[in-house]
Structure formats: C-alpha cells, structure tokens
C-alpha cells in the first residue's frame, strides 16, 4: 500500500502511483451495469434517473442489460410480491459475480405500505444479500444516485485478498442462494437464514 500523504505529495510533482487493487476497484465502480428490471412504481423513478435530467451515465451505470448474465447490479425497484419473489431470487442467482443489490423504496426494504398484505414479501433482504437500502415511497432519483455513490464507495473499499474480501474473490463463499417455493400459506422457506437471521424481539 502506498501511503496516502506520499501519494498526494507525488501527485503534486506529477507522478501518479496506484495499486492493482485500486485500479481494479476503479474499473469496477465506474462500470456498474444494472439489470433492466422494474417491479412497481419505483421503477418509474429508476427510469427517470437514467434519463437526461438526472443522467445516471455520469456514474458509468447507464447500460441497462436485458440479461442477468451481463448485469452487475440488481435494483429491486418496487413491491416484491410472494408470487414474484422466487423469480427475483432466481434472477439474482443467474447473475454473474460480482453482483450487487440495491433495494429501492419502502416496499423493497420492508414491504412498505403493503407490509400487512398477505401476498407481500416483507423485504427482499430475507432471501438475497442487499448492499444498499434506500427508503422513500418512491425515493427520488437523487436518492437512487446517492445509493449508487454509496455502492461505489463500498466497492472502492473492498480488498483483493484477506478476510474481508468480497464474495466473488473468495472460493469458499457461497454463490448460490436457495430459491423459495410457493408453500400452502407462505413461501417456503420464509427466509434465508444465512442472509437474514431472524431478528430477536426484545420486550
């Protein structure tokens, strides 16, 4: 690792130093291709974010891919119903590593205003690991852009080796997330314990 102060000092002299890790993360964070995939009204805000006024292209993420094979990021934009949840989880499984998830809006992170509904999943993080949660109903495009920046910062802080390295660089880390099935009354299983430990209610 190059000392941060030394790096700035060298930069003033016109010498640019970097590490493979930095170069790799720089490339990754500036080319996050989302999957073309909208679930509900939040998707309208997501579309607005990509258009000229908010211009997601500034962050290198304007290339919405119609196939999970080419996508890096899944934006869960809207209510995930229990009918839709298996499809969402299967799509996430079909994405190539490294892959990220932004849960956009109140519904995607918790069920939102439809939380009491019998057919609404209470947050997609019950089945797949979510990197950034954005509250809002729906979140404004600025909020989605902030989620992008947060994700970029997260990618920037990842190391190639060591304990805290991301899942796609770890041969041991699991790459498969079980797809829930429609049970008699609910999805089975109701959550993925490895991703979402059932919270303990303290009374």
């Amino acid at each position: 690792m190059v000392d941060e102060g030394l790096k700035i000092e060298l930069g003033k002299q016109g010498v640019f130093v970097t590490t493979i890790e930095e170069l790799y993360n720089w490339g990754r964070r500036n080319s996050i291709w989302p999957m073309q995939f909208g679930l509900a009204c939040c998707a309208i805000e997501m579309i607005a974010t990509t258009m000229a006024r908010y211009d997601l292209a500034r962050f290198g993420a304007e290339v919405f891919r119609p196939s999970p094979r080419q996508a890096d990021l899944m934006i869960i934009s809207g209510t995930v119903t229990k009918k839709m949840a298996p499809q969402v989880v299967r799509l996430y499984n079909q994405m190539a590593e490294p892959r990220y998830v932004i849960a956009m809006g109140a519904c995607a992170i918790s069920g939102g205003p439809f939380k009491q509904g019998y057919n609404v999943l209470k947050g997609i993080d019950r089945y797949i690991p979510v990197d950034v949660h954005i509250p809002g109903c729906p979140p404004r495009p600025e909020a989605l852009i902030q989620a992008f920046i947060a994700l970029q910062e997260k990618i920037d802080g990842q190391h190639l080796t060591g304990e805290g390295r991301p899942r796609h660089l770890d041969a041991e880390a699991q790459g498969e997330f079980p797809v829930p099935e429609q049970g008699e009354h609910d999805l089975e299983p109701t959550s993925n314990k490895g991703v979402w430990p059932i919270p303990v209610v303290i009374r």
Partner: protein
Amino acid sequence: MASNPYFSLAVLFLAALGFGLAPLALAWLWARVFSPAKPNEIKNSIYECGLESKGDAWVQFRSAYYLYAIIFLIFDVEAVFLLPFAVAFTGLGAAACAAMLVFVLMLIEGLAWAWAKGILTWA
C-alpha cells in the same frame, strides 16, 4: 532481415496482435488467480426472465410447415400485382382484364389443388 521492406509491417502486425490478445490474456489470468468460478445449477439454467424453464431450448418446428409459407408468399405477391391493376382498372382494355383474370384464376386453381391435397389441414 531488417532490410526487408515488409519488416516494419511485420512488427506492426505483431503489435496489433498483442494489443488485441493482451487484454484477453490478462482477463483470463485475473480470473484464474483472483476470481474463482462458482457455477451452480440455478446459475447455469436457461434464462427465462426468472421463471423456471420447461423443456429444452432447442425447439424444433415441423419442416412441412414450409408449404404454408409458400402459399402465403404467393398470395402476398399477388396482392402487390392486384394493386396497380385496381388503380388502372378504369383505363384498361378487355385484353388486359382477361390476362389479369387468367393470372388470378391460376392462383385460385393452385389454392384449390392445395386444399384438395389436404395441405391446409393443420397437422
């Protein structure tokens, strides 16, 4: 060798080859060293917009359907011929009308033949 007039071309060719192959080799090396492949059954399954795919992706269609295609094409082209005929209808002589009728009758005869042969029955 360096005196050969094509020597510089050969150098440029090698450089161009390296320019193309080096990123590929680097990507391959990177995947080998850092990024282990973790295939699984769901990941390798056919992409069907998230739904479970049923059956094989290599669906075959009966080759006998080419007859429908040919009959469709014939009547499609006939419509193209009928349009100028209809536009110029008022100024046409009896001979031109008869020639057009013969043309249409020939096509109708063909259709009658196909019908009699049982080609129009969807099998």
